[in-house]
């Protein structure tokens, strides 16, 4: 379905306002960046910096007030299975079994029942959930539920994968495991990924490139390509360069104006 090399995101001069009437405020201001096809970008920022708002706009759930937002040259206007989004938790359909949750996208495209169920089983095997096809989401652990979420989005072969703090509700160990699971899946199904988080370790471990946003109104204050190779393993977090970059981002989190001076 997806042509090779597709999935380029262009964000140019994008501002987004939220709220109504007197309560209107600018969530993000004049964002400018692009994501190359197949790239995994983490957007890092303090809570309330508008990073989820930006993701909502990319998904097409929120409108932008200024600028231009395109994927492969097409203006984003409303949700589409081409831009799959994974939220933090509890967005699996509780009344559908795991297999039917995953097969929902193909069902909407009118794919034959037997075909879509086979496709769902295949992708569930890929995320390590073979044997759980007939379970209801509530019968799975948090980590397993997030695997189903990822499978449910990837079965649509989206141009871009949008992840909104997908592992934020998991305990530290499960989260570390999910990082390796995600990278493994991403290697096998290379998809342009925008991953929003406030966790510096998470961003450094996963990303090709980390974009950092300031507090509201969110503006880009840093954009760094990470020097780490792949495949990555948990030992990376004690690497000298990893620690140095972590300190850098911690400093930015504390005094965000420094970065603007550095970049100017």
């Amino acid at each position, binding site marked *: 379905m997806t042509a090779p090399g597709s999935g380029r995101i262009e964000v140019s001069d994008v501002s987004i306002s939220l709220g109504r009437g007197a309560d209107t405020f600018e969530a993000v201001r004049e964002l400018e960046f692009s994501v190359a096809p197949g790239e995994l970008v983490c957007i890092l920022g303090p809570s309330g910096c508008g990073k989820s708002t930006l993701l909502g706009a990319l998904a097409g759930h929120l409108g932008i007030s200024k600028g231009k937002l395109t994927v492969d040259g097409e203006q984003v206007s409303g949700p589409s*299975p081409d831009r799959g989004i994974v939220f933090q938790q509890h967005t699996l*359909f509780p009344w559908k079994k795991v297999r039917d949750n995953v097969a929902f996208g193909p069902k909407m495209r009118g794919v034959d029942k037997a075909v879509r169920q086979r496709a769902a089983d295949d992708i569930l095997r890929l995320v390590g959930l073979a044997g759980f096809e007939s379970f209801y989401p509530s019968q799975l652990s948090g980590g397993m539920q997030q695997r189903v979420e990822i499978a449910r989005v990837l079965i649509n072969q989206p141009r871009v994968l949008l992840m909104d703090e997908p592992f934020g509700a998991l305990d530290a160990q499960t989260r570390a495991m999910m990082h390796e699971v995600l990278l493994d899946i991403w290697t096998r199904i290379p998809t342009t990924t925008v991953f929003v988080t406030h966790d510096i370790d998470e961003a450094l471990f996963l990303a090709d490139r980390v974009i950092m946003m300031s507090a509201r109104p969110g503006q880009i204050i840093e954009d760094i390509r990470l020097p780490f190779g792949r495949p990555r393993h948990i030992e990376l977090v004690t690497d000298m360069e990893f620690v140095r970059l972590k300190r850098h981002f911690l400093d930015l989190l504390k005094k965000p104006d420094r970065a603007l001076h550095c970049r100017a």
Partner: protein
Amino acid sequence: MAGSAGPEQSLGPRLLVRLGSILFCVAMWQLASSQRLNLGILTFRNVPPPTEVAQSLLQLMHSPKLYAHLVSSLWRVFAGYGAAALSGIVLGFAIGRSRAASDLLLPPLELLRPIPAVAWIPLSILMFPSSELSMIFITFVGALFPIVLNTVHGVANVDQRLTASARSLGGTRAAILLEIVLPGAAPSIVTGLAIGMGTSWFCLVTAEMISGQFGIGYYTWEAYTLQNYADIVVGMLLIGLFGMGSSWLLTTLGRLLMPWRRPTMMR
């Protein structure tokens, strides 16, 4: 649940206590009516004892009258409640999903809602050509409001993130309504159906007492006018039994239709 330690161990004795409690009540009733107990403000002089009631029940079960009474009552509930369930769920969906429908439909419904269904009886006798239809209408009115309001509540409270996810996965409007909103609102709808079932039985019995020629409510009232006092209690017991049966039917149906709500955690 985790709090109650060893429920299986204490269930036997507790069951005995519960059974004993019922037997005690029946025994007190027997004693009070056979002694024609008079407490001043309350007298058991005309209250038939359980033994007489049991005899009347056996008699009724052997007469064709029982069948005729039950069939007419059940048919009225089926028709009135069925119509209320169908239109209530449709109205609830419209009001819960569309602002225009809510502005259009909710004000008149809110105005009519405080009027108890039983208060409709005189007007409905005037409005409908047959007393049969007027009784069905009363049953309908009794069930309609709880069903509409609970459906609206359920539909309006479906998790926004679920509908957002469905739209991101390519869900069409119709599919989201059918596959996300309907099951999401189902628990609330079933609650409305259960409450509506109770009120529709209540309304039916009242309506039958006033304008029926058959039916279990009519039977109970007829027993009073004919001074067959034991039959009054038989009628009451049958009304209770069928009310209980229909709400059991609903909860069972709800459980079958919503298997994901069964508390069978695998982990």
